[in-house]
């Protein structure tokens, strides 16, 4: 519905600005005015909006209503684990006893925070079957970077300077090769076999004295548990390499298997996926790095250590002896870590197992219901997500992208499209454990209805979406003539 007056979101902040309006009132200066520095050091060109508080509230509320979100829509975005984000977790993270503490205040003034972090390290060690954890990394890709830097540091510490190659499956998320490149590795692609597992013959060929390691996402981005995984780890270890685990899909494995038991050496978790911290429209996340005993000395700094005797333990930050160093200014995304701690503590052992049970059940329920309507390229039991190909529909003239856009009209967010790259017209659907069966049934029906529309009225699908605040956007124009900020119009052109 279009809103009238200033509640309409079309006008940007700088266009709403009216000289002398204020959006907040600050206390008067209560100390004698001090001499200012040389005038040349002071600016007189600060261009910020001048708007009142009601306008700010109305504008941002209006903008929020243009979004689909978990709280308003089913969000089956594969690989992103868009599960319900509990409100209690947000509430506690804002308590002054957590949000109001300074990262550099003396540890004796932050013992509660440090104990929480120490306990969370323990939970994540137990869940992954690893020996240690650093919570300092600020997102999944940041965890990957830290993890592959640890692999690099470990090889270099052994005097093994020849290990320049990092093998990454063709189904991997783009952050894996990007992280390996940032850590100075040469990326080599590892093909998948017909069943969607790592191609063992290809791996054996790569496994030599120049192989630093492999980066494996488990379950893979095809939503499949690699039945060769123990053998993959064995081959890499025999060649002197290390195995990195991308924990983006851990929701499938919680309480079902531990990465450490399978042979992984180092892995990251996405707390903003598996452990329900809100994604926030693109962060903040947290990507703790977990590792086996032999890699502990290289963990990113800092980690939390416990000292003294019970019950009067003391907690402190420490730098592991051969740490890859600091990866961020302070100790990690504490507010996110508080939320994840609260989540794990709330669910406990039984609840954590229930997550994987229901996430995998819900995905297979969708798989079963739609496999006759949409092509299932790997026809086997899936884990937490199912990857269909829309190539049957493509043959009838409508693409996977168009189907995804049409779902928006049905009141569902779109699945992940065209990923993994090895599935043509991929539609990757991850329902998570927190959706009701009624929602899953409605979603299944929507995808069946869209399939029927492709026969009855293909243009309806091709032109979708129809009911969103805007229709299909001209992305080519955005890239060709980048307009990345508002500027006052000058001689008819908004941007130089």
């Amino acid at each position, binding site marked *: 519905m279009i809103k009238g007056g200033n509640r309409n979101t079309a006008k940007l902040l700088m266009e709403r600005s009216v000289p002398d309006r204020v959006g907040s009132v600050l206390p008067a200066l209560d100390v004698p005015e001090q001499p200012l520095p040389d005038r040349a050091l002071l*600016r007189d060109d*600060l261009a910020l909006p001048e708007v009142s508080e009601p306008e700010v509230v109305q504008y941002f509320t209006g903008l929020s209503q243009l979004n689909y979100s978990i709280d308003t829509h089913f969000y089956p975005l594969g690989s992103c684990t868009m599960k319900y984000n509990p409100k209690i977790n947000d509430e506690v993270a804002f308590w002054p006893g957590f949000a109001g503490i300074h990262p550099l205040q003396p540890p004796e003034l932050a013992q509660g925070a440090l104990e929480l972090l120490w306990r969370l390290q323990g939970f994540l060690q137990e869940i992954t079957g690893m020996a240690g954890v650093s919570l300092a990394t600020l997102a999944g890709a940041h965890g990957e970077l830290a993890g592959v830097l640890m692999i690099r540091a470990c090889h270099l510490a052994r005097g093994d300077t020849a290990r320049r190659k990092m093998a990454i499956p063709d189904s991997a998320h783009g952050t894996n090769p990007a992280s390996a490149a940032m850590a100075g590795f040469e990326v080599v692609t590892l093909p998948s076999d017909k069943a969607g597992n790592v191609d063992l013959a290809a791996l054996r060929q790569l496994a030599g004295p120049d192989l630093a390691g492999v980066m494996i996402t488990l379950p893979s981005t095809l939503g499949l548990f690699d039945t060769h995984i123990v053998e993959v780890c064995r081959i890499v270890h025999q060649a002197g390499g290390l195995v990195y685990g991308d924990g983006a899909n851990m929701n499938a494995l919680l309480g079902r298997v531990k990465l450490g038991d399978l042979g992984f050496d180092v892995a990251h978790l996405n707390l903003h996926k598996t452990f329900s911290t809100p994604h926030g429209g693109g962060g903040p996340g947290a990507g703790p790095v977990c590792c086996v005993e032999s890699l502990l000395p290289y963990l990113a700094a800092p980690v939390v250590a416990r000292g003294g005797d019970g019950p009067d333990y003391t907690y402190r930050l420490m730098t592991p002896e051969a740490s890859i160093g600091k990866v961020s200014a302070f100790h990690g995304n504490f507010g996110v870590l508080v939320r994840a701690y609260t989540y794990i503590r709330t*669910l406990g052992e039984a609840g954590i197992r229930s997550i994987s049970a229901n996430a995998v059940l819900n995905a297979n329920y969708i798989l079963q219901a739609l496999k006759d309507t949409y092509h299932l390229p790997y026809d086997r039991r899936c884990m937490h997500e199912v990857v269909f190909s829309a190539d049957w529909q493509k043959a009838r003239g409508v693409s996977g992208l168009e189907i995804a856009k049409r779902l928006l009209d049905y009141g569902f967010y779109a699945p992940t499209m065209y990923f993994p790259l090895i599935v043509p017209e991929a539609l990757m659907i991850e329902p998570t454990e927190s959706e009701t069966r009624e929602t899953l049934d409605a979603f299944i029906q929507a995808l069946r209805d869209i399939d029927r529309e492709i026969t009855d009225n293909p243009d309806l699908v091709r032109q979708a979406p129809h009911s969103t605040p805007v229709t299909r956007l001209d992305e080519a124009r955005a890239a060709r003539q980048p307009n990345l900020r508002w500027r006052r119009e000058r001689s008819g052109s908004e941007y130089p």
Partner: protein
Amino acid sequence: MPFQSHYIPNTQQEQAEMLATLGLSSIDELFLDIPQEHRNPSLDLPPPMSELEIQRELGGLAARNRPLGSGPSFLGAGSYHHFIPAIVKALMTRGEFLTAYTPYQPEASQGTLQVIYEFQTLVSNLYGMEVANAGMYDGATSLAEGALMACRVTRRSQVAVSDTVSPACVEVIRTYCQPQGIAVDLVRHWDPQVTSQTACLVAQYPNFYGSIEDIAGLARLAHGQEALLVLSADPTAMGLLQSPGHYDADIVTGEGQPLGIPPSFGGPYLGLFTCKQQYIRQMPSRLVGRTVDRLGRTGYVLTLQTREQHIRRERATSNICTNEALFALAATIYLAALGKQGLKQVAELCYHKAHYAAARIAELPGYSLPFQRGAFFQEFVAQCPAPPAEINRRLLERNILGGLDLSGPVYRPLLPPAVDKGMLLCVTEMNTRADIDALVAALGELG
């Protein structure tokens, strides 16, 4: 009865019915691809807790921390105590913002996309720079990515970092640069060595010790060797001081935490990242652009994505994916609420209060301000008559959180020999005159 979580709707009955559609009779059968010897391991986690119990437990943990608001606090050094209007939390925690994903489907994400476009506009204006991206993890990683970007732009592989840059940031720059074979040299801020091999000169504005350096001079020095000037700049100070763009800086980054984000024990924060227009194709992280839809209506999309990891993979400008969009939203709301006058007022309050505190401390016997000859903003170093750790301990007895102790092994070698008992003090609008007078009185007694 088995445990039923309030976050998971499926009942036992529903599970059984859904399993039946798959021809299965137990959950365990879903997991047969996992090798049997590793399947269903023991999981030593505590039992589930009710919301009431978890509130009690967390209340106990929170009570063992001292929040900045519980007494006068003068600690800064990269994380700052500023006033946050109530509307920031009220708006950013709306579920429509909080529980959305990265805006890959623009038609269903115009709210987040328009916010990021606003953020890019306001951050560009704040720094006087041509373009800003959608944000980075934090100030330190933003600065490190700025150094990497300068190496790509100049095709050089040496980075000169001023010794007045935050030591934590310097360490992150090293972590990021060294694996790629980029040399990181710490240079003296009063005589920075920049050569024809240097990709960039990295400096901080105001610097880690609060002082305002000659940014125009640094820019001339860098540009004289066709190197870039990469800055980390405090966004609050931009309410008062000339923008880095005014001094012709090439890449300007910053810690966005002062813009409406609580200190929260160090995170989540927000990396600000801006540069000159000519370098946008080497920028890391997301960019939002303005365009039109099929009906000619204005809309916003993620753009220039061929720089990014999901398209370019190992040849991307960075591996960054999830960044800090929610806190870019917080900063945008903060800047809208404070506005042109408010940010200037905050900066002036910080400036005058810090200078008042500094002048009073300089009068105390035994204390001196070693860097007082230059201009400073809201932080300054006081040389103390006793070890700063000892002074801080005794301030705490009066419920005053003192400044950062600079006498330890990290900071001491970076300072002149005479500054052997330095304390870095920070004064913001959160400190009342009574707070400052209490600090000064306590320091006088302890000195």
